[in-house]
């Protein structure tokens, strides 16, 4: 049992806790690697075990394990409601906080239901502020951390820690050319920090800023009045863009290629800052690309935390895998067969070569367990990503070899193969809550046992087809 420094005994780190969820690495596994290492050896430790190299979400915990003082205990001193499901939270510490740059983020750690949870939030504090940290948080229906924060009251004796500010790809606020911020929804948070910084530093030359804030409905505007007030005395322009009408349809306000080109023409030699949901970032980036804006002039905060970015990838894999699986089941249930493929699959030569291809594919999925169980931990991160991306293609690879489920032992083989895929799809990445760890401990043996059964049955299949 490892007790967290400066905390009472309710929330503890257990040696058996999973520190890196991407690669399922537990604390005790890392302990053996960090013996005799200094805190600046963190990269070598992470490379050695692969942990912290997939989504970077647990890197701060590696630093903490290596003895670096990464957390500052804070108390909530102010909570403001900015929109129906958006609140700002001000945290203060007993000691002066490290100055931050405008647009940087912090990691917040809080003890929720007796376990430590981490999330990354962009600071909305002016740069150089050392007395407090402020974050602005939107609550999501299934968001463990955001809902916990939204239910928080000032003065509650909750245990919250904040990290030092992080993030370095930020636009300068003392240039002379305009900084155009295309932000959407809660993605306005870094722009809030920019404006607050400029308004506090009005005695020195500051950069002209244009903020274009897109929201679905007018009620979703965040700190708009404050921004308008600050804009009056500074070289700042704020535009609220409401993109949906009362019937929930998109209206003409929505940014498109033409509007971006108009922005670019009206503001030559500008820099651009983008923050919002992935789809928004993707669209605006492509519009700017068409408008021939160099990537050097574009700063992107993709608004998602590294964990949620990983989750987004996981959801992508999940939906691709699920769709392919449903397509395979449907083609067999509805007998949507292609004659040429059926004829091909009845030929011995095709069976042998597609079978070899199928076997190579399956063996490639066992690279991850091999790297995990052997001492090749530094390959874990790459192997993990490849395992997930390749795994979802299972129905296609199976379809190339056979479009049918087969009978008796072949049916068992097919079902075991698809059970491995289904358990893989419903992995711990798709189950993101405080129950994640207990889910993972039940999920992993199930996924692996189906994989092992599949390999044994494939061995039996090879014996049968070569014998008879």
């Amino acid at each position, binding site marked *: 049992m490892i007790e967290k420094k400066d905390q009472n005994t309710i929330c503890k780190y257990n040696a058996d806790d*999973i520190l890196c969820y991407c690669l*399922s*690495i*537990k604390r005790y*596994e890392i302990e053996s690697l960090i013996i005799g290492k200094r805190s600046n050896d963190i990269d070598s430790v992470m490379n050695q075990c692969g942990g912290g190299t997939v989504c970077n979400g647990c890197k701060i915990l590696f630093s903490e394990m290596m003895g670096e003082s990464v957390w500052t205990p804070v108390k909530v001193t102010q909570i403001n409601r900015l929109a129906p499901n958006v609140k700002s939270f001000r945290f203060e510490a007993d000691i002066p906080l490290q100055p931050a740059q405008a647009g940087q983020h912090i990691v917040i750690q809080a003890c929720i239901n007796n376990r430590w949870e981490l999330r990354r939030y962009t600071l909305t504090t002016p740069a150089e502020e050392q007395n407090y940290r402020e974050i602005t948080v939107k609550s999501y229906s299934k968001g463990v951390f955001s809902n916990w924060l939204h239910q928080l009251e000032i003065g509650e004796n909750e245990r919250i820690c904040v990290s030092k500010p992080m993030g370095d790809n930020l636009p300068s606020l003392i240039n002379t050319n305009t900084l155009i911020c295309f932000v959407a929804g809660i993605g306005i948070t870094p722009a809030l920090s920019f404006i607050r910084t400029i308004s506090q530093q009005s005695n020195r030359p500051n950069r002209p800023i244009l903020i274009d804030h897109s929201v679905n409905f007018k009620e979703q505007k965040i700190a708009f009045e404050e921004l308008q007030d600050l804009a009056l005395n500074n070289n700042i322009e704020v535009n609220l863009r409401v993109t949906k009408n009362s019937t929930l349809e998109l209206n003409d306000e929505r940014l498109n290629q033409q509007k971006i080109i108009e922005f670019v023409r009206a503001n030559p030699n500008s820099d651009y800052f983008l923050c919002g949901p992935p789809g928004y970032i993707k669209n605006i980036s492509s519009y700017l690309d068409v408008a021939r804006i160099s990537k050097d002039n574009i700063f992107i905060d993709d608004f998602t935390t590294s964990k949620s970015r990983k989750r987004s990838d996981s959801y992508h894999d999940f939906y691709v895998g699920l769709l392919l699986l449903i397509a395979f089941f449907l083609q067999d249930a509805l007998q949507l067969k292609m004659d040429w493929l059926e004829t091909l699959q*009845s030929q011995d030569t095709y069976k042998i070569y597609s079978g070899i291809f199928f076997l190579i594919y399956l063996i490639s999925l066992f690279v991850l*367990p091999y790297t*995990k*169980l052997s001492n090749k931990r530094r390959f874990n991160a790459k192997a993990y990503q490849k395992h997930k991306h390749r795994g979802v293609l299972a129905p296609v690879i199976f379809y190339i070899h056979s479009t049918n489920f*087969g*009978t*008796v*032992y*072949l049916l*068992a083989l097919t079902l075991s193969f698809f059970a491995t895929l289904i358990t893989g799809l419903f992995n711990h990445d798709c189950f993101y809550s405080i129950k994640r760890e207990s889910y*993972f*401990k039940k999920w*992993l*043996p*199930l*996924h*692996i*046992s*189906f*994989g*092992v*059964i599949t*390999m*044994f*049955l494939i061995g*039996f299949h090879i014996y*049968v*087809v*070569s*014998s*008879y």
Partner: protein
Amino acid sequence: MRSSAYLGYGIGIIISILIILLLSIDSLHSWRVEGEFNVGHENLSCNECHDKATGSIQQQIQSNIQYLISERENVTTFNFEIPDNKDCFACHERDNDRHKVHRFNEPKFKKVRDKIQPQLCVSCHLEHNGVRVTAELDMCQHCHEKTVIKDDPIEVSHEDLVKSKSWKTCLGCHDFHGNHYNEPPTKLNKMIPSDIIKKYFEGGNDPYSLNKREKSKETRYEN
């Protein structure tokens, strides 16, 4: 993580070994086939069609490795021989067969052999498909495209049926191997519809006649 993973490997290996042991039980041989037995073969054991290959497993593997590195010309069968016509004839050989497969080895059938390999029983009766016949209904076209019958007794002549490429009608009157006691009809409306024949191919009831000239053996080991 490792303990959960080892648990998964342990469970997987134990279940796999149990499944393999179950599949190895002789009385459960029907569980280890690639597909359902064809109609009439449901109660056969593997050794009815699959003869043990010559040589030991080690020799067979060695031979096949030599084949892969081009030190041997032919592939060696592994464990069991591939079933051929003699395995089928062990139960189904008949002197009065209308389409004896060996006849298709005659030079005049070379083109047909290249197309559908009629000289092999398995070309039309591929095992482990859960059916009776795996050939298509219009297979007659490969040999009978010049069929003309003198004093043709049927209402639409065979010549006209061939000209109109009505190949699916052939089996509506004629039983391919001629093992049924039935008189081919002379009128088209008396013939067996092709969908009934298709169902018969797939394992349905015999539409020709229940009276057969010769019965197949129940087992090749029957005297």
